[in-house]
């Protein structure tokens, strides 16, 4: 990406400005402060909300907060029960965290594109990109974590040798070992990449379209941004849901012994 072309003016400059993160440091050790900040704040929001509900949790008539939290818990639990048949203390909370966190990331997309950068510029912050899921680092961080869990559980459940056997001898038997290995490696590596890129691609494109709409004359903007925002409500939920369900499916595959 052309993140270095800060100086460009006009439409291109506007777009690039909006898609450039607030960064700090050089080379690999660059930190996208906005991504880190907003995802941490949203994560805190998620944890705070559910912690409030959990503290007040009772088996009597639930309050409004508890009701909503339980709605999500049951929803996630049903998804987990549908595709995962083993027993794991991690998967359901993991799925809940992924669903809520990704949803909150994506939700930032629904704020008007200029609000946060405007506030930022008033505070002297030049670049601000508020949707963490439009940062590959955020989506990859999550998908790589999931990938590590897949590998961890594969080895834990099937044993190192069992996992190695699965990589080498499936699906075509021992005679096509190199081919099997290649196929399996691609299959495994495709998991985190597809997870991360799907989320990133959808949200990046969505954000870009909001930015493009924001470039139009003000009297056209509502006509376009309103339906797009409504459509986006579906997209952000769907992407969060897909990320969660695929995580559950991948982990249940890791738990299944062939």
């Amino acid at each position, binding site marked *: 990406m052309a993140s270095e072309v800060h100086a460009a003016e006009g439409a291109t400059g506007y777009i690039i400005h909006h898609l450039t993160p607030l960064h700090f440091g050089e080379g690999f050790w660059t930190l996208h402060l906005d991504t880190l900040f907003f995802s941490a704040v949203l994560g805190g929001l998620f944890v705070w909300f559910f912690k409030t509900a959990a503290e007040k949790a009772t088996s009597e008539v639930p309050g409004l907060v*508890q009701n909503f*939290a339980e709605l999500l818990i049951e929803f996630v639990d049903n998804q987990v029960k549908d595709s995962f048949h083993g027993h794991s203390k991690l998967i359901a909370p993991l799925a809940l*965290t992924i669903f809520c966190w990704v949803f909150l990331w994506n939700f930032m997309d629904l704020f008007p594109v200029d609000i946060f950068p405007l506030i930022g510029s008033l505070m002297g912050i030049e670049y601000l990109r508020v949707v963490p899921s439009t940062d*590959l680092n955020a989506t990859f961080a999550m998908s790589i974590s999931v990938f590590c869990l897949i590998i961890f559980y594969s080895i834990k459940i099937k044993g190192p040798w069992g996992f190695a056997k699965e990589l080498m001898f499936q699906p075509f038997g021992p005679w096509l070992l190199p081919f099997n290995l290649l196929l399996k490696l691609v299959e495994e590596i495709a998991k985190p990449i597809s997870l991360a890129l799907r989320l990133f691609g959808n949200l990046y494109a969505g954000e870009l379209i909001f930015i493009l709409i924001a470039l139009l004359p003000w009297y056209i903007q509502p006509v376009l941004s309103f339906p797009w925002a409504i459509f986006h409500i579906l997209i952000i939920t769907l992407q969060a849901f897909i990320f969660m369900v695929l995580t559950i499916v991948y982990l249940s595959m890791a738990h299944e012994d062939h």
Partner: protein
Amino acid sequence: MSINATLIGQMITFALLVWFTMKYIWPPLFDSLEERRKKIADGLAAAEKGQEQIILAEKKAKGVIKEAKEQSSEIVTLAQKRANEIVEESKDTAKKEGERLILAAKAQIEQEIQQAKEGLRQQVAELALSAAEQILGAEIDKAKHQDIISKVSNQLG
């Protein structure tokens, strides 16, 4: 736009969030859900049990009522029977009493008839005697003809 150290930061945040959810959020909420589910199930079961008990109690009550009805009708029948008996008895007594009274009356009548007869006989004898006296005049001696008079008097009786 490139992969950089942000990735590591995000992974750490993610790990912390997952750990926190796993430790402090999921278990209490899920347990309260389960507990409520159990409570509701128990409540439903109890309600069903109660319903069954009501049906049982109703059956029992019906049985008791039926028994009571039978008993009462039995009692009524007995009482009627007894009443009939009493009526019959009193009828009998009354009849006997009447007969007795009639008999007594008859006896008294008989007695009175006898007394009247006796009286009449006396009077007839006296009349006959006085008539004979008047007819015969002083000729008949009361002492001489005493046994004739008593014979006549006896024949009249």
